[in-house]
């Protein structure tokens, strides 16, 4: 049954509101944050050297894939980068952030928006986002395992156990990435959220446990999204600066 609301015509046009607070601040910060990351990561991904130092490997280049036929002066980052890129681009938090900040739909609550032919997430491209996100989740879990392997390797200094500042940087980074990835809304549904009754479903207790764990991370998904975004960039930067000889990596153990 069609039940549409024919009522009030809201004020069209961008940014009309009676709000008195600085509603434009958050979208502005988000744009600046995205721009900084995209600029740095694009530059870094095109680099053909300085992505590793000692036992450390930049997360932009992991898993490290370099087929023989691949030209030496081309970066290998793009073999993998589309996975975290696609994962974040289809993530519920990032969607919220760019719908608001880039598409002004809406820039902030109760603020008018410029575009009138709204289709939301039913549009030609946008309707694929939640579906693609599933695929990217599965792929990202694989990449995450790889990043953990890199961290284990970062304890290995020419066959001897050791810890450098770089090891800790990589460890913190992969922890933040895990908090982000394991707090995914799709995972939350998958591990238990799609059960209508936990205790009646097969394996219900285990599923409830997993769901509760993921839910805790999901609660702060926005926080992990930002922390992990910057930690990836900073980890690459740290390793790069060490490789360039600008920074000296201190061995702790």
């Amino acid at each position, binding site marked *: 049954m*069609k039940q549409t609301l024919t009522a009030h015509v809201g004020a069209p046009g961008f940014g009309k509101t009676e709000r008195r607070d600085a509603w434009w601040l958050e979208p502005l910060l988000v744009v600046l944050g995205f721009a900084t990351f995209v600029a740095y990561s694009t530059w870094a991904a095109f680099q053909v050297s300085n992505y590793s130092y000692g036992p450390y490997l930049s997360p932009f280049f992991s898993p490290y894939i370099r087929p023989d036929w691949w030209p030496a002066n081309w970066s290998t980052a793009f073999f993998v980068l589309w996975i975290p890129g696609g994962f974040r681009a289809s993530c519920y938090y990032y969607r919220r952030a760019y719908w608001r900040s880039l598409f002004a*739909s809406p820039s902030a609550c*109760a603020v008018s928006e410029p575009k009138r032919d709204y289709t939301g997430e039913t549009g030609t491209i*946008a309707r694929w986002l939640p579906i693609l996100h599933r695929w990217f989740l599965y792929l990202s879990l694989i990449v995450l395992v790889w990043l953990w392997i890199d961290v284990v390797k970062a304890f290995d200094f020419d066959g001897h156990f050791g810890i450098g500042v770089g090891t800790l940087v990589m460890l913190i980074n992969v922890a933040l990435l895990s908090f982000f990835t394991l707090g995914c809304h799709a995972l939350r549904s998958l591990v238990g959220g799609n059960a209508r009754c936990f205790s009646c479903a097969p394996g219900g207790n285990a599923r409830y446990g997993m769901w509760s764990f993921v839910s805790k991370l999901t609660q702060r998904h926005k926080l992990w999204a930002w922390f992990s975004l910057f930690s990836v960039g900073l980890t690459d930067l740290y390793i790069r600066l060490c490789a360039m000889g600008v920074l000296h990596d201190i061995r702790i153990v």
Partner: protein
Amino acid sequence: MSETVTSTQVHGGGATADQIVSVDSATNQHIQVRINRGEAGEIEGRWEEFTVPLAKGMVVLDTVLWVQAHQANDLAARWNCKAAKCGSCSAEINGKPRLMCKTRVEDFNLAEPILIQPLQTFKRIKDLVTDVSWNYRINATIKPFTPRQDREWKWFQHDADRAQEMRKCIECFLCQDVCHVLRYQTEEKPQFAGPRYFVRTAGLDFHPMDGAERLEQLADEHGLGLCNITYCCSEVCPEHIAITHNAIIPEKERVVDEFHDPVKKFIRKIQKKK
């Protein structure tokens, strides 16, 4: 506790100053409120400014009732409980959808007038009162609770938690008002049930003993896909229901699960072949 002088409560018309300003909470200060008034169907309306005596702990609804009692007897406003539980006093205060009875005057910069408008998404009946009946018509389209027959009626608190969060809704329609899908379209609104009804549907879908299927209705008739998860509904909900987080996204994910998950599709195919 301060001693509050009360007389009989009169709805929508005759609250006395004493009812509002208790003896020892009165101050010498005055504040300005600017109320958007208008007749049925008027969109822009007209702003009228009033000077109201300030009392400690005063809420915006108090100022409206004071104006009604002293300066504009014909001012229309809807309220019932003054306890943030009936959901009738919804309005937009300094541009934000809020319950008038739960919004403290002292939270604002009192050097400036406080702006009070009716809900912008719904048609005005008079002054601050809007016609929200469309919501009840949407509500009637939702498949009601359908008990399962194939299972013993036994469940635990943790099974009921998710449904219970959704049952906290007081139907204030602040979420419907702020949702940009309903708010900023012209003339005929898109076919979209709105966050309040995603909350109701999730409350039924996550009831451990419910057996009805509502996914197709949600995705098609109720336009779940039009929501772009921008969280405004969650920001305004006075009951702090995590609408987007715990109702809308889990339902969107159930749609993916049911119709689009690559691994599940694969498993189903194999099971069919067997």
